[in-house]
């Protein structure tokens, strides 16, 4: 991994990064692009430095998660102010809509994941969708490995119940 110019690594991981950014932004495509851009700029401008302790992917996904959290806090604060001035409904209508199109199975998976607590959803996505180890997922989320293991087991169990009962959700 080159520490001098991270651009090739960023570009190579870009599709996976976008997918992870979507997960961090409640499937809001516009917000995901914004978060991704801010994350790339942090890495390229050296505000987030890769120290080689983990894989570059783990590092980058951690930066994306933190940036999304910052964005969420900023938007929440803006929401408070917008609501105070009576602009909340308009702002809410502009954001949050999922633009996903896909088959029914994926829609059901998206719906089931939306029900999961944030941590459980993040761990299972990192593990099953992005192919990380539990240790890598724990490092990305800045939690202990044991905690990540528990979240993973609970998420799997919850998904088993949610996806096993499609009629109930329809």
């Amino acid at each position, binding site marked *: 991994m080159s520490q001098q110019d991270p651009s090739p690594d*960023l*570009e190579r991981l*870009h*599709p*996976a990064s*976008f*997918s992870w950014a*979507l997960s961090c932004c409640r499937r809001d*495509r516009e917000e995901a*692009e*914004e978060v*991704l*851009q*801010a994350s*790339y*700029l942090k890495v390229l401008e050296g505000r987030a430095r890769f120290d080689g302790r983990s894989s570059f992917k783990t590092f980058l996904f951690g930066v994306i998660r933190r940036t999304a959290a910052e964005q969420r806090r*900023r938007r929440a604060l803006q929401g408070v102010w917008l609501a105070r001035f009576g602009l909340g409904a308009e702002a809410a209508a502009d954001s949050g809509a999922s633009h*996903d199109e*896909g*088959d029914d*199975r*994926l829609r059901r*998976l*998206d719906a089931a994941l939306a029900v999961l607590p944030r941590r459980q959803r993040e761990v*299972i*996505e990192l*593990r*099953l*969708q*992005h*192919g990380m*180890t539990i240790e890598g997922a724990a490092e990305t989320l800045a939690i202990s490995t044991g905690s990540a293991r528990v979240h993973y087991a609970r998420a*799997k169990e919850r*998904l*088993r119940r949610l996806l096993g009962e499609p009629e109930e959700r329809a």
Partner: protein
Amino acid sequence: MKPHDGDPHEQALTELFAARERRDEAASPGFARVLRRPVHGARGAGGRRWTLAAVGALLLALAVFGIVSMRHPAPAPTLADWKAPTDFLLDVPGGDLLDSTPAFPSRNLPIPTDSVSRPRRL
């Protein structure tokens, strides 16, 4: 180590997540496009200039205030001006009687004296 470890449910989930990953990645915008999109909420050079100007004006105002305060210091209180904060406790009802000289009755009133002449004993 594979995620599912022989668990059929986990294997099905893995396949489902893989399909999700393919769908997400297929919908991803180009790397260059993400980098080149306008930075949301970023303040340009003009915005930064205004911020710097405001901070400069604030510092200048503070400096002027400091200099003026140093040149005209408030007069130091003397010991004679000092007043105990608990002085009000001494203001009791009727306290003014103790602060003034009592007035004696008017001279027109008959005042018994011992100056009445008595017959002298011889």
